């Protein structure tokens, strides 16, 4: 782990205070049999390379192209998402909220950083930061404007506060001009932010 070392010293190595704390915790947990080093490595690799917003984009694209799946996703998101192989290790309950011309949905975790990992991966820095967490509820329109999203005045905004038990996935509106597109092609229009509600799906032609 190259970052753990401080190369200013000629003799001996030095670990940063925080790296020492992590090593202490980990070595004790391993010795006591509470965690296995291999399991930790697998977890890290999974979150670094396998789980991310492409999972959620496939869920959304399938809902856009298959009305039955969409109905299922809105009625029982946990099961509909799991059917595509995306299951939360945390066993959290998933809820899908659908954007319509009259209602835009925005997801936040005011307490900390609860987020639908199985479909979006780990949250971006801004999602975990105090300004977003505090302002999304008080001034959602202002927050959206900062993301470059201005909604019509008569579009209501619903803000959903995630918890350890319930995680939300926004189902963005399908862009016009995409009739007859395959689910695979549609999924390329689905951005991470459109599934959090700080953006909308890309228009055809906006992807390369």
């Amino acid at each position: 782990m190259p970052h753990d070392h401080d190369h200013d010293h000629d003799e001996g190595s030095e670990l940063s205070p925080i790296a020492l704390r992590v090593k202490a915790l980990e070595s004790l947990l391993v010795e006591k049999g509470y965690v296995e080093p291999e399991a930790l490595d697998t977890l890290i690799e999974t979150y670094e390379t396998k789980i991310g917003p492409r999972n959620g984009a496939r869920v959304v694209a399938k809902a856009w192209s298959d009305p039955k799946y969409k109905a299922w996703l809105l009625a029982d998101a946990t099961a509909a998402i799991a059917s595509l192989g995306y299951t939360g290790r945390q066993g959290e309950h998933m809820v899908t909220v659908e954007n319509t011309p009259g209602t835009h949905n925005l997801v936040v975790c005011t307490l900390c950083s609860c987020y639908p990992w199985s479909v979006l991966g780990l949250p971006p820095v801004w999602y975990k930061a105090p300004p977003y967490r505090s302002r999304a509820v008080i001034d959602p329109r202002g927050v959206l404007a900062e993301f470059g999203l201005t909604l019509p005045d008569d579009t209501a905004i619903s803000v959903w506060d995630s918890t350890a038990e319930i995680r939300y996935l926004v189902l963005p509106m399908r862009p016009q001009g995409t009739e007859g597109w395959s689910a695979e092609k549609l999924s390329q229009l689905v951005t991470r932010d459109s599934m959090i509600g700080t953006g909308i799906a890309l228009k055809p032609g906006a992807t390369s």
Partner: protein
Amino acid sequence: MNPPDEPVFNEPWEAQAFAMAVSLEAKGLFTWTEWAEALGREIKMQGTRSYYECWLAALEKLVEEKRLMSADERLARIEAWDRAAKATPHGKPIELGR
């Protein structure tokens, strides 16, 4: 638009701290509700700490609350790793003396 994202973890220790919490919950040693409360408490008094520093602090407190280890044990282990690191020449893996 989707700007290129920051890396999932900025430093290896962040990944380790993340994986420990996820792993302990998966084994039922605490629940996500307990974890969210612990992390929420740290984030409420975040100050200048980074997100994963809060994460680590929450984990240290929760393993103690859940009696997986004592604070004394943990602090002694930190010192042991520090001594081991300082006694290890560069380029060699750092190992705890037995």
